């Protein structure tokens, strides 16, 4: 009785120690994962920042005035007058 309870105590003792160690390991693990998450979030934010900048750049490049002047000056395009337009009905 006394012997078994001592063994039980020992088992519990080691269990406690073991679990304590596991807690430490898991905590460390969770911290590493958290850092990863933060890094990925950072990456995501950087990505969306870049996306916003590119959108802005695209809209500047596709600016109507710019396209219009380039079409007229560089490509020599012009707006057709009414008698040059033909409408095709389906």
């Amino acid at each position, binding site marked *: 009785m006394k012997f078994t309870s001592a063994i039980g105590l020992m088992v519990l003792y080691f269990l406690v120690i073991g679990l304590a160690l596991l807690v430490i390991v898991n*905590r460390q693990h*969770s*911290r590493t994962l*958290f*850092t990863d998450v*933060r890094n990925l979030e950072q990456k995501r*934010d950087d990505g*969306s*920042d870049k996306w*916003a*900048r590119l*959108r*802005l750049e695209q*809209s*500047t490049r*596709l*600016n*109507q*005035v710019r396209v219009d002047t380039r079409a007229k000056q560089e490509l020599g395009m012009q*707006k057709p*007058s*009414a*008698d040059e*337009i*033909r*409408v095709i*009905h389906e």
Partner: protein
Amino acid sequence: MLGLLLVIGVLLLRAVYLEVFQQEDLQKKADIRQLRDVVVPAYRGMILDRNGEPMAISTPVESIKCEPKKLLAAYEKLRHDNEVARQGTGAAVTKPAEGQQDAAAGKSAAEQQQARDTAAGAFTRMEGALHTVEQQTGLAEGELLPRLEKDKDKSSVYLARYLPLENASAVLDLELPGVSSERDYRRYYPQVDAAGHVVGMTDSDGKGIEGVEKVRNDMLAGKPGKIRGIIDGQKRLVEQVDQLSEMQPGQDVQLSIDQRIQYLAYKELLTRVYELNAKAGSLVVLDAHTGEILAMVNVPSFNPNNRKGVVDWHQLRNRAATDKAEPGSTLKPLTIAAALESRVIGPDVEINTSPGRINFGKYVVKDHRDYGSISLPTLLAKSSNVGASRVALLMNPRDHWMFLKRLGFGRVPDAGVSGETAGELRDYASWGQVDRAAHGYGYGLSVSLLQMAHAYAPFAAGGLLMPVSIYKVDQPVTGQRVMSEKTARDVVRMMEAVVHKGGTGEAAMVEGYRVAGKTGTAYKHLGKGKGYSTDRYMTSFIGVAPASRPRLVVAVQIDEPKVDDSGGKAAAPVFSKVMGEALRLLDIPPDNLPGLKQATQPQPPATPVQGAT
């Protein structure tokens, strides 16, 4: 052995003491040191035009911070080193800032020379770096050091706020001591002045204060989140303990605006307002079939990218929606439509306008000359006040009032624009004879330009009034029938007479398209009992096109032009240009081409019913 046990015992007791009795206190202290509540900022959503082009977008910017003491100390040290090296005296004790000394060699003359060069090089580099900083942050040359000197006692100052990333990284790449950066977001408005009133702007905290930015602020802003976490020695977050609130990113808002038409409309209106030396101007382009606002511009405008540039608060007013005024002659087609609807006249009647004036005691309605007996198209083309009054007087006031009410007079349009006015339409019970006549040609009631454009929309949508909206409409909306399809078609046909050679709206003609519209000139009321001004007026043109299958409504209004005289001359050219380009941009087929007549010959001219759209 006993000693060891004793020590262990003492330690255990101490541990128990700390863990059991002091636990709360210590935990608190630890939390203060390592627990932090971190705000996770929400990204503000974009405002897009109907084709997905950005009209307001948040992009990252950097604010450059500097600790004056550190930077000044580094600068002083280099300068000192340089001087010492140049004098050649203390070379032995001075270590050049970036010099690598060959330890083995002694202090030869060559080495002293080398040390001198290195010190000079380091100093020149430093000066160059400071110069770069000045260039990139927009400071004047030589301004940086005195500024740092002035703020010497502050722990940190901003060298520049909201720099574009390229400039910021150019500064950061110099790796100057004490210089760091902070990420921020700034709102950019690619359409600048052209869409200022519609899009609005945000204040320095990123909260919407004008336009759609204000109306849809909650949706755009999202909700910043908050997490509680543990930080390490370098203040980096290493563990999340608790999520206090979840971050909800802002959503994008898509407008019904077509930024191409918006820009064009702004450009044309601005040019015209400038040419006429007018006080202000507004323009609305409406898609009658969906009720969407394709463009809404005002002059004077403001640049939302530059809050400080707003000197006058009048600049901020979205006049097209917030300002009400008596519409004048542009109301006449509505009077005729109301009369047709209440069946007091038919489309082919002639109205006798002789002798060109009607007297109501003190109040006189008059035309430029006696037009005699005229048809309805001529009434519109000549813009006869007497004719319009006669038509209005034929109607039961209640019918007239009901008709105007149905078209949105005296009611907030609820388009989603901030500060919309309801205009003014008094109850028919209080209308006297004079009111009834005046209402016929656009006096005695007031509306915003947006309301007027909206009221013309049924002419272009087969008699259906769609709810007006500044936001893109994806699902088909159900309109309200405000007049019969026949009335709408008849009035459009009559309004075509205005935009013909000899009509008041001749300047509104668009090449390739048939246009129907109406000019308007409304003299300004000077206040109660003072009557009307003779030289201050609001001139306007509202029209629909293409007349054979109308789709767009364009309404132009110019306030107090100093040069030209009537609506036909002042506002119609703007209408013509904007309408022409808008039709072209939206790929709406022309209906008035020289070669087209043969092609459409198989269709009889009097098509009974056009498919309601």
